[in-house]
């Protein structure tokens, strides 16, 4: 059977679903709904596990690509999807499966929004140590390896176990439900940051933590990047322990932002100490500071123009932050604790200019030994710039291919989006 894109072909998909007797809703997509720079043929919504497994089997027969989607906040990430393909909307997989506050663990369906989960946990004074990311789902955060600007390993350190359906329609689970578990090969790690190319994550078990007794934000503005960086270094050298940190550069000014968590004595001591350390800067008061912090935290999901993430460690981070090789004066956000930088040219839609700035970002990252990921760019720009949106895997390419084919032998899961194909 051929592709899906025409009315007849969509009809064939609907027929196959009806014939299989599974509950999958099919909605034709509209031209504006791009994923990885292309418009998928349709959006399908499996209602349950049987429907999802059945859908995978139909897609294998039809040679149809399946693009996993939670809330859609990461639709811009990665290479262009090879058509024909449909978006598989997993928002029906929603709700808490088990939650024992005394154990600080929860198992949820993957389509559960992080915000909804955190609201439920808050009733017991607990939280998932992840930002809410708009309407992002827990499963989306897992396959996107979302960590936010905290210093810890992000969601990788929170996930205890997963359930999934792979590209051959096989359902299985990995890991466990307790805060420490050695359970054979840790194949669940492969799913974290896999962008829907190894399987549909259907359940996630993760650790949660008590809501800190107190939180506070410290923020200041500086005339340039060098002073902002020096301000961050002062905090580090003073041995203070911010729970989260960000630096933001927009036209003509720089901000340094810190979040404190702990008991009253810890929060009070550290915010007072920072006020002294940052006395040369212009203080930014809440709620402006809080708003800026939330915006900096969402740097990896904002869309529009050209947006690039650069991961780089240590002193190279400060060289990258100066960004002397960059074209066209981008806005910049740094998550110092997570060794991650974002450059964005938010209003850029001219292809030639976009190609120029994208190439300059890759060049800048290479100069500092950083890893560049393109998280958004106008249609066709990545191809025109002749860069790989994930960098060059070199000798690891063969291993990535072997992993991919162990989970997705026919290559139907988000084809073209990630690495490990061909």
């Amino acid at each position: 059977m051929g592709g899906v894109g025409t009315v007849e072909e969509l009809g064939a998909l609907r027929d196959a679903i009806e014939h299989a007797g599974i509950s999958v809703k099919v909605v034709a997509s509209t031209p504006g709904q791009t994923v990885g720079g292309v418009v998928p043929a349709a959006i399908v919504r499996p209602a349950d596990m049987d429907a999802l497994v059945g859908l995978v089997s139909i897609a294998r027969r039809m040679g149809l690509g399946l693009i996993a989607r939670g809330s859609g906040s990461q639709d811009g990430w990665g290479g262009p999807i090879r058509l024909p393909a449909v978006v598989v909307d997993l928002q029906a997989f929603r709700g808490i499966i088990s939650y024992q506050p005394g154990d600080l663990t929860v198992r949820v369906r993957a389509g559960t929004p992080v915000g909804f989960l955190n609201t439920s946990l808050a009733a017991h004074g607990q939280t998932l140590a992840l930002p809410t990311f708009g309407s992002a789902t827990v499963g989306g955060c897992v396959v996107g390896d979302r960590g936010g600007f905290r210093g810890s390993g992000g969601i990788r350190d929170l996930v205890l176990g997963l359930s999934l359906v792979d590209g051959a329609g096989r359902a299985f689970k990995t890991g466990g439900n307790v805060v420490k578990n050695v359970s054979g090969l840790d194949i669940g790690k492969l799913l974290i940051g896999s962008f829907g190319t190894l399987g549909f994550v259907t359940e996630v078990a993760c650790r949660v933590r008590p809501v800190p007794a107190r939180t506070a934000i410290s923020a200041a503005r500086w005339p340039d990047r060098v002073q902002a960086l020096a301000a961050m270094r002062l905090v580090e050298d003073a041995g203070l322990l911010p729970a989260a940190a960000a630096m933001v550069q927009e036209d003509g000014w720089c901000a340094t932002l810190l979040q404190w968590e702990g008991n009253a004595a810890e929060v009070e001591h550290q915010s007072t100490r920072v006020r002294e350390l940052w006395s040369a800067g212009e203080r930014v008061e809440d709620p402006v500071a809080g708003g800026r912090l939330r915006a900096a935290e969402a740097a990896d999901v904002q869309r529009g123009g050209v947006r690039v993430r650069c991961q780089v460690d240590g002193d190279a981070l400060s060289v990258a932050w100066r960004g002397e090789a960059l074209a066209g004066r981008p806005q910049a956000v740094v998550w110092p604790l997570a060794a991650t930088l974002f450059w964005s040219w938010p209003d850029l839609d001219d292809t030639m200019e976009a190609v120029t700035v994208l190439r300059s970002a890759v060049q800048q990252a290479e100069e500092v030994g950083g890893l560049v990921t393109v998280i958004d760019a106008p249609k066709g720009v990545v191809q025109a710039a002749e860069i790989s949106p994930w960098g060059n895997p070199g000798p690891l390419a063969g291993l990535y291919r072997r992993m991919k084919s162990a989970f997705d032998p026919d290559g139907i899961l988000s084809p073209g989006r990630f690495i490990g194909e061909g």
Partner: protein
Amino acid sequence: MGDASGPLVQQLCAIVGPAHVLQGHAELLPYMTDANRAFRGTPLCAVAPGSAAEVAAVVSACRAAGVGFVPRGAGTGLSGGATPGDGEVVISLARLRRIVSVSERSRMAVVEPGGINTHLSRFVAPLGLYYAPDPSSQSACTIGGNVAENSGGAHCLKYGVTTNHVLGLEVVLPDGAIVRTGVLGPRCGGYDLTGLFCGSEGTLGIVTQIAVRLLRRPEAVRTALALFRSVEDAARAVEEVTTSAAVPAAMELMDAHAISAVEKGTYPVGFPDWVGASLLIEFDGLAVGLDDHVQAALDVCQRCGVVEARSAQTPEERGRWWNNRKAAFAAMGRVAPAYYVADGVIPRTALRQVLDQARRIADQEGLWLANVFHAGDGNLHPLLAYDPAQSGQAEAVMEVGSAILAACVYAGGAVSGEHGIGLEKRDELYYYFDEEDIAAQRRVHDALDPADTANPHKLLPRPGRCVEVRRAAWDPRATVAGGGRS
């Protein structure tokens, strides 16, 4: 040793030099088991390569000869992970123990696998840094072994286990290729191979370099010791302290049997006779908030019926408490000719229930059981005393251990927290996993080691045994009814 093996040994001698190839029963004796003496095998030989290239050449030679190879660190593992099968080649990483580089600003060190865990922390101490994972055997075990087993330790309640601290690896794959992953690899996006290799017990290859995260040494540490009349009271305190606002750095529980053993050991604390359980609680971080955290935890203990509780007054006192705790396994030697240590994890809310079940299971077999464990993360270490000279006791102990693991899984837990699967617990994986789950692990394994020469027969259970294993497993309903294992 068959004649057919002769050429392989000669080849290995040519690769690493004859001085680094051990043969003959007496020389190989230390390589026949790890710290779990229940499993034993006679290797063809033991080789100690001096570089990653030599490791790769040894691996390639074994593969070409169709002979399995078994990587080995210090041999302190407790699940038979480093125990060779008969005729296999043990590859000791003891000569690869350099600290390759330390980056203060990036808080990262690159080390070779044969280096001892504590040596790294000692080396970076002048920079105010340390390496967090701290298994009780940390003064002997190697970081390579820790990576293979994804080892934990007393402080992983707050800081996580080995996989949370490994940033990149250099690995010799089962086909002899050398690849570098994570921060040591090419700067590109991709699947988390570093995470996959951590805890793979040498079944996917041999790690030859490890990039680890270093942490800044906390500004201050406060340790409290709380004494309870019963394990039940202490377990309730554990649950309440872990769910209050601050995460302790560690929370270690010992029951009366364990206390009686450690008090006969090298580091007695002088516990009163009436103590049914001791709880060691530690907080670290900024000095300014620590006393409040400790006080909050002690208040919880008060509500849970603590009889005596206090903070360590001096670093020496804290050191003595920790030595006392960390020497608990060794101290078992004072009360029994041999002991078996189990390793299971349970949800913290099931602590009281499972400890009670474990006691009943041991009682039914007439075995002496002591509990000393990482209570904060629900990681049980039931210690079963036995006499290997008495026929059948060693087997009985293993069966009781397996029944306790079944109780852990029934309660929502896992069959291992930090000691690995190895040879010991392959079948027990079926307590939680179905055939489909194991088949998925097998597919990933076979994608990297189709010939099954890398630490063969470890970690993954034999396929098709799920039903059989579960049928033979301990059933809690049987114990409640006064039965036993069904």
